């Protein structure tokens, strides 16, 4: 308990741009202090997210989003302060998304002190396709901004 920071990448790499969360985690390899945990989750299951951030003071979540912004756009949301804007949907290819899981955490009183979501705008969530180039560039930007915040 009482660890400083956790980075959680949410997404399914088998579903196109939904894999951006996993990609951000991969890009963080070797760039964060050793004690910072990196957790990969395939979807926004509330129990798994609550477990993943339990005990951490600062939590960073990287996930694909659909908000109407240009593909590859990176947006930062301080979700400890309030819900995601209504136009932003964190994408999940099954069940509940991370946005719903965060609100479930808020309702249960189990949010960390700081909860930052980096959303990368995606466009294609088809089976078996990789990240589009703009989304890959967005992943790199999100990773760099997370490194900057944690350091």
């Amino acid at each position, binding site marked *: 308990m009482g660890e400083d920071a956790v980075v959680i990448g949410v997404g399914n790499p088998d579903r196109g741009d939904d894999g951006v969360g996993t990609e951000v985690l991969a890009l963080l390899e070797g760039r964060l202090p050793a004690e910072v945990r990196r957790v990969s989750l395939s979807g926004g299951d*509330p129990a798994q997210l609550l477990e993943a951030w339990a005990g951490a003071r600062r939590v960073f979540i990287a996930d694909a989003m659909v908000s109407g912004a240009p593909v590859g756009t990176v947006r930062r949301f301080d979700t400890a302060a309030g819900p995601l804007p209504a136009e932003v949907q964190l994408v999940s*290819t099954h069940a*509940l998304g991370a946005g719903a899981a965060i609100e479930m955490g808020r*309702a*249960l009183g189990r949010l960390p002190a700081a909860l930052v979501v980096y959303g990368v705008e995606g466009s294609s969530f088809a089976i078996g396709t990789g990240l589009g180039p703009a989304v890959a560039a967005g992943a790199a930007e999100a990773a760099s901004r997370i490194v900057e915040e944690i350091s």
Partner: protein
Amino acid sequence: MSTPSKPETRSISVDYLARVEGEGNLKVRVRDGQVEIVEFGIFEPPRFYEAFLRGRRFGDAPDITARICGICPIAYQMSSAHAMESIFGVKMDGALRELRRLIYCGEWIESHVLHAFMLHLPDFLGYQSAIHMAADHRDAVEKALRLKKVGNDIVTVLGGREIHPINVKVGGWYKVPTKKELEALVPNLEWALDAATWAVEFTGGLPFPEIEQDFEYVSVSHPDEYPFNEGRLVSNKGIDVPVSGWNDVFEEVHVARSNALQSKVRERGSYHCGPLARYSLNFEKLSPRVQQAASKAGLGPTCFNPFKSIVVRCLETLHSVEEALRLIDAYEAPARPDVPFEVKAGEGHGASEAPRGMLYHRYRLDEEGYILDAQICPPTAQSQMSIEDDLRRVLETSLDLPDDELQWRLEQTVRNYDPCISCATHFLKVEIDRG
């Protein structure tokens, strides 16, 4: 939603039903108090899985079809593997067969708890969503989240990963777990035994509309076991055929409003598959603990009230937890993870019980094992007619409700089925027109 000009000829329209998997709609027309049209439409685009399975090798089917659904991939793997195995004469026995039952326990637990507590329970307690419900029912939501995770953990250990698991193959498994790996699941499963018993009691105490339907219940049925992945196709109105007889007793029809084929009993009509059907056709195969919990929740050996499906989902969760503990206790790792077989041409059939109902697969292979054609009949596609029957009945008995309450009740009626529209299209939007 529009306001009625007078009570008996009002009009309600809802464009999108929440808390279901996928995209569909509901259109209802009532004139002078008479229900004229009830149409349950699926507008999620068709996904053409059957077409792109053609030309693939037999061994690709479990992994490709598992991608049809993020909630019930195991069902797809089981039905496809069993269909292929029926062509090659492979018989799953011993620990390999038991492991398939165990992974199904995991899928039933996670899917049933997700639907019962996160998607369906808010209907009964009057909340827009589980998030709105969580603040007032914190303990129940916390318990449900943990219970669901017990199921996820089983699927992860056996399936290699939680979403679209990859460890099932035609002929068995790629890798089997050690006894120790399975025993690590036991403490949480023992907690889950009490939690699932609580879930049955909790949902058994909910208020239920007094509606019973004359369902033709259809499920897989095995002489000795509550059904997962082996048995005959049976109904309470006379169907009793081997799985290979699916197309002899059922037919798929296309209706303009749905991108998913609807299924019906030939020359008869709608049928109902899913937890209520399994329960009512196989009650005697449930353990004394589950039967007792059912009785305590006010259920007899059959149940024809579609709204009580939430209780039956919790009973099946309890069954799955108990069965998982039994299977782990008896498990001895087999010498090899699969059974050998020779590829040959032929036609094979597989039917297993996905959490939301029977899932039928049929494949025809050439002599090298390439798929010539495939047929996949998901439970939600099979349930469409039954859903429309229920909506009509609920409408007829609830026309005195104000528009917002009626809409609520109709959406709840659809969610009784835990529909997975993504599966059915391999579907919700509500439109009520009272004139």
